[in-house]
């Protein structure tokens, strides 16, 4: 066996170790993005989550003006951090629609009483069906839907104060 070939296992080991160290140092991105951006919103009809608050259907989201659809839940901790920012967007004239994922009316009512209610309508997505239909993988997540009912932008995770400008820009572009 030639001398060079004798070191082949060692070289392989070094390559393997380098690969392992590289992956440990820079873990793969675990964020799952929706492939529905640019596509038409799937048709859905959700029942109302709260009495006195309108229900939400896909038809409400193709009414001429861009809207922000926010997936949230009373059991979701980052949603509490997001609430004041949504309130801020509402004050700037953004139409925000809520989809409460796997939630109960009394819990949602308590959540909104504590953190404020920025929503025009709230649909109840008890089996995450609309969430899956939109390619969303958790709460909170927000989608910009243009006036024709096309999904224009997906925001994964809580909308932070620094993201307000981005959301406003996306809504403007969807106009």
């Amino acid at each position, binding site marked *: *066996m030639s001398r060079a070939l004798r070191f082949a296992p060692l070289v392989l080991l070094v390559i393997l170790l380098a690969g392992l160290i590289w992956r440990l140092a820079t873990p793969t991105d*675990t964020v*799952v*993005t*929706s*492939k*529905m951006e640019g596509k038409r919103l799937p048709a859905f009809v959700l029942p109302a989550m709260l009495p006195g608050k309108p229900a939400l259907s896909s038809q409400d989201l193709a009414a001429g003006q861009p809207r922000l659809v926010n997936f949230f*839940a009373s*059991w*979701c*901790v980052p949603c509490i951090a997001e609430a004041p920012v949504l309130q801020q967007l509402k004050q700037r004239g953004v139409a925000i629609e809520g989809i409460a*994922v*796997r*939630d*109960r009316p009394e*819990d949602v009512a308590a959540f909104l009483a504590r953190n404020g209610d920025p929503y025009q309508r709230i649909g109840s997505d*008890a*089996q*995450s*069906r609309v*969430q*899956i*239909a*939109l*390619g969303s*993988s*958790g709460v909170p997540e927000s989608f910009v839907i243009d006036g024709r009912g096309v999904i224009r932008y997906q925001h994964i995770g809580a909308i932070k104060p620094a993201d307000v400008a981005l959301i406003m820009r996306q809504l403007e572009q969807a106009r």
Partner: protein
Amino acid sequence: MRRLAILLLLFLAQPLLADSNLPPADWANRQLPDPAQEAQAQALMAEIRCLVCQGQSIADSDADLAGDMRDLVRRRIAAGDKPAAIRGWLVQRYGSWISYRPTAEPAAWPLWLAPFALLVAGAWLLRRRIRLRAPR
């Protein structure tokens, strides 16, 4: 003192991924009455990746969302949908990432070629060894 400190620290613990208070969806943990349909659903669920516990299939995961996806798969199979159509519907939403079954995409070519490359390498090594041992 130390015990008290640990006890107090326990109150600080917050669940990172909170789960909802709702019970699991209808078909999340229940088998379809038709064994053939249930077998189809099981085979598909074992090949769909959970969005929450990303190393697991939805058949293995305890996450709420995985339960809702099992519900979706069983519901559609019961309604007569083909497993390939359900897989396609999910891939359309989440990309080929959601399916564990390797595809014919260029990114997967090394995976298909690896067994043949290893076979060739093995045959070459074996040939060398036999040649070295053989008396001249």
